[in-house]
């Protein structure tokens, strides 16, 4: 019997190594796998490259990971926010390297990794400084920039429900990067509100098929969730 569920977030992140590339789901705090990040902080891996849309909000989740000085580099689209103080400080201190990627290129490059593509000609960023030095090409009268896939050693994502085969469904806009990151990482770890019996998820509505997920951990419902 295949059972991808684990009892604790600590067990799920225990083999993440120093220097690993870790994708973290979420758009702001929606879909941010807080408990897994807390476990990662506790675990202690350092010199991480983090792929996320943002660079942390407030004091928890990715912001806490940065605060604890575990992050060497961040690949993201929108680091600077009103509550990104820990990133701001680390960046200004030269402790964290930043690779700024337009959000659509970020999604497309993660998607390309999951799909096994070698590179993609993307329309976004052409003629801007974020494409400086990159290969460009005119195709059918439009200009494109060549962008490479973003792969990861580990993806930490948050889903709504999961089963022991790793099938996942998400909740509202907390879905965001989760399904893409699950496809692009060697090991995808999902924290879910609830683990359900095999077969309880409608096969027509599974968003992330289990093949893309290696570990599932139930962290319980938040009060507000329907």
């Amino acid at each position, binding site marked *: 019997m295949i059972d991808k569920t684990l009892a604790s977030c600590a067990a799920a992140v225990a083999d993440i190594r120093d220097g690993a590339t870790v994708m973290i789901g979420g*758009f*702001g*705090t*929606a*879909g941010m796998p807080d408990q897994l990040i807390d476990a990662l902080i506790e675990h202690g891996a350092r010199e991480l490259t983090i792929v996320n849309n943002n660079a942390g909000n407030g004091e928890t989740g990715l912001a806490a990971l940065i605060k604890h000085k575990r992050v060497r580099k961040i690949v993201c*689209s*929108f*680091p*600077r*926010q009103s509550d990104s103080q820990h*990133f*701001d400080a680390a*960046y*200004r201190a030269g402790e964290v390297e*930043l690779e*700024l*990627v*337009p*959000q*659509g*290129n970020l*999604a*497309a490059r*993660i*998607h390309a990794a999951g799909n096994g593509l070698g590179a993609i000609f*993307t*329309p*976004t*960023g*052409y*003629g*801007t*400084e*974020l494409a400086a030095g990159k290969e460009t090409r005119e195709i059918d009268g439009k*200009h494109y920039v060549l962008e490479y896939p973003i792969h990861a050693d580990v993806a930490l994502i948050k889903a709504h429900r999961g089963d022991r085969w790793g099938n996942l469904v*998400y*909740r*509202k*806009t*907390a*879905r*965001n*990067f*989760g*399904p*893409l990151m699950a496809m692009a990482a060697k090991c995808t770890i999902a924290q879910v509100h609830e683990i359900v019996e095999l077969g309880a998820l409608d096969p027509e509505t599974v*968003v992330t098929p289990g093949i893309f997920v290696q570990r599932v951990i139930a962290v319980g419902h*938040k009060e*507000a*969730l329907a």
Partner: protein
Amino acid sequence: MSGYQRLTREQMAERVARDIPEGAYVNLGIGLPTQVANYLPADKEIFLQSENGLLGMGPAPAKGEEDPDLINAGKQPVTLLTGGCYFHHADSFAMMRGGHLDICVLGAFQVSQHGDLANWSTGAPDAIPAVGGAMDLAIGAKQTYVMMDLLTKTGESKLVADCTYPLTGLRCVSRVYSDLGVFDLGTEGARVVELVEGLSIDELQRLTGLTLAH
């Protein structure tokens, strides 16, 4: 000063809303463009997309009804209309980059008369850069509109011959809605579509330093 009255931000939002037809798929950028939603006619069905993964975005929820899993691209709580749906980021940006959105409304630091857009960075050396979905939105929609005050607080025109701020996209803005008038942009330069009352083309050319067709 001349005897003209600038449009308020609410009036600008109302003006943009008037040009959005029923059935349009629209992304409203963070900040001022978000206010356009307040003026869309209730009797027309217009589809608002938010790049974090929803189509058919409704108004802000009532106090106490906020759901942290249901937010817009500005990370504010929103609602979903009946008939709306959720999707992941790749599908969301497919909508934006694949030419499926009809209209995108963005703010700007500068727009060139040929439609170049600068709205993500002032190029200040000590600033932390952040781009989000701005570059994707700028080049992806069938029509990209900009909504902005025409002049900075110090009186410089934000509609310019060539952008001096870092670019968001090339030749991507087709129309500018400003507090002083509406402009169509293109290879021929800027054309005045309408002006606030009391403002002359001559005065507008003086304010922008541009030759404006009309």
